[in-house]
């Protein structure tokens, strides 16, 4: 029998049992909101059909960051993939977590067992990633069928999408821990809309003045869009390592932050 007390540096935070948080989440999804979860897959598809087919007819081709001319649909498809990773992760890590935290008091229950705050944080984030992975695979298949994956590196877009989702999920959960009312939650959407519209999603950022380009480049979604677009169009560059690094740092900050907050809220 292993000892009942946890040891090590993370002993007070982590019981190595994030999987029980995940299995609880899956069970809850299956019994209550699987339709909502499944239907999330269609949103980026609708955007791709509308913008790719309709707007693509007006626009023709667009140049990527590396100067390669690609059809408009192939330009926006990777952006929509990155956006759907962001949306899925943010939805799961904000609204879902908000309800569990403030209404169903789920984390209080979990933390009164042997689970630690890091178990809860990991479990919730991995759950969000699972959902993100499901959407991403579906969307990649549609892209392949429409001929929008222009290079074999498109395969690497899958892990890239998970990286993006991980970044947004870990940070989103930390931010949610500060939210107390529904009205405050609305501000999340308020921040996400401009990020969605301005992050080189629908057109290259070269249309902006340089100062605005810098602001956009500081935001996480732009790095995600550039990373995924580089991989699916095959326009590779060294800058992509920078995008990856951005997300690694974001994940690290988010995890530390979330764990601290959960500890402060429920254990101190």
């Amino acid at each position, binding site marked *: 029998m292993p000892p009942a007390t946890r040891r090590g540096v993370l002993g007070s935070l982590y019981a190595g049992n994030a999987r029980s948080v995940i299995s609880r989440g899956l069970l809850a999804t299956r019994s209550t909101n699987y*339709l909502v979860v499944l*239907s999330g897959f269609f*949103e980026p598809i609708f955007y791709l*059909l509308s913008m790719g*087919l309709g*707007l693509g007819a007006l626009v023709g081709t667009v140049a990527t960051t590396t100067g390669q001319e690609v059809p*408009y649909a192939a330009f926006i498809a990777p952006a929509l993939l990155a956006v759907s990773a962001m949306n899925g992760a943010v939805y799961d890590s904000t609204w879902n977590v908000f309800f569990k935290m403030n209404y169903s008091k789920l984390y209080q229950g979990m933390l009164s067992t042997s689970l630690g705050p890091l178990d809860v944080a990991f479990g919730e984030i991995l759950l969000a990633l699972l959902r993100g992975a499901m959407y991403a695979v579906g969307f990649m298949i549609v892209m392949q069928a429409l001929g929008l994956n222009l290079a074999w590196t498109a395969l690497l877009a899958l892990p890239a999408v998970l990286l993006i989702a991980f970044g947004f999920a870990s940070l989103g959960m930390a931010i949610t821990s500060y939210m107390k009312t529904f009205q405050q939650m609305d501000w999340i959407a308020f921040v996400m809309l401009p990020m969605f*519209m301005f992050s080189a999603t*629908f057109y290259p950022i070269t249309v902006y003045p340089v100062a605005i380009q810098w602001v956009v480049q500081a935001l996480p979604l732009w790095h995600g869009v550039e990373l995924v677009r580089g991989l699916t169009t095959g326009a590779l560059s060294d800058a992509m390592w920078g995008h990856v690094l951005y997300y690694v740092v974001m994940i690290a900050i988010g995890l530390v932050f979330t764990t601290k907050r959960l500890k402060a809220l429920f254990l101190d």
Partner: protein
Amino acid sequence: MTLSTEATTAEYADRALAGGIKPRRWGSWYIAEHRFRGMRAYYQTILATSIGNPLVYLFALGVGLAALVPQGIPNGSGTISYLAFVAPALLATAAVTVAAEESTYPYMMGFKWNPIFFAMNAAPISGNQIANGMIISIVGRILPTTAIYFVVMVLFGAVPSSLGVLGILTATLTGLAISVIISMYTAGIEEDKGQMAMIMRFGITPMFLFSGTFFPLASLPWFLQWIGWISPLWHGTELGRVLSYGYPEPAWLTAVHVVYLVGLSVLGWMLTQRVISKRLNK
């Protein structure tokens, strides 16, 4: 406190009946007032999105995306700038977004989560008045939203014709048509199984994307164009374009837009009244 022994039962009854006169007459407006007061809880986000959304959308689509469509959009014998083309569509979309928001959860709230509709109905306020009040309050939120949107459009130089100001009314009418259709559905929901998310995902979002908002409906393949024809948003957008920059279309088609939107509004309003009254009197 003195105990009044004078009043008889008949007097109490008279007093009670007298107290009900005003609510019976003005009940619809009382309900609307109740909703407006409720909106104060989130007035900050209402204000922020009312001003922020037009800025973000007009800048991103009208200025940013327009850079990819420098030739403009075909308009009769000439062309029209992409900004002027997309602006009336965004105006109507703003009305629809607010309509959807105010016609979903507020009904769940009133009937289920905090069932105040039943309490109102127990007072001398009828189901029809509750329906009217909700719809008045929804229009009352759409109208200022579209007015602010229009001002931002003018600041962007996106409204060539002065007739464009009537777009505020046609956009509001579009919002009303959508709102009553959603209302008659949401007012009847007994069990919350994520229907709201479904309305957004399979109703509002595809409508936004396939109603000729970002590009002329004719650019879409034929098998997707029917979405536009039945979409109130498409009719509202086309009306807005006729007013804003004189989009050339036959007069009968303009008339169809108006009749379609008015027809949906009247029909949806009546059905919403029926659903609410029926549910309250069950």
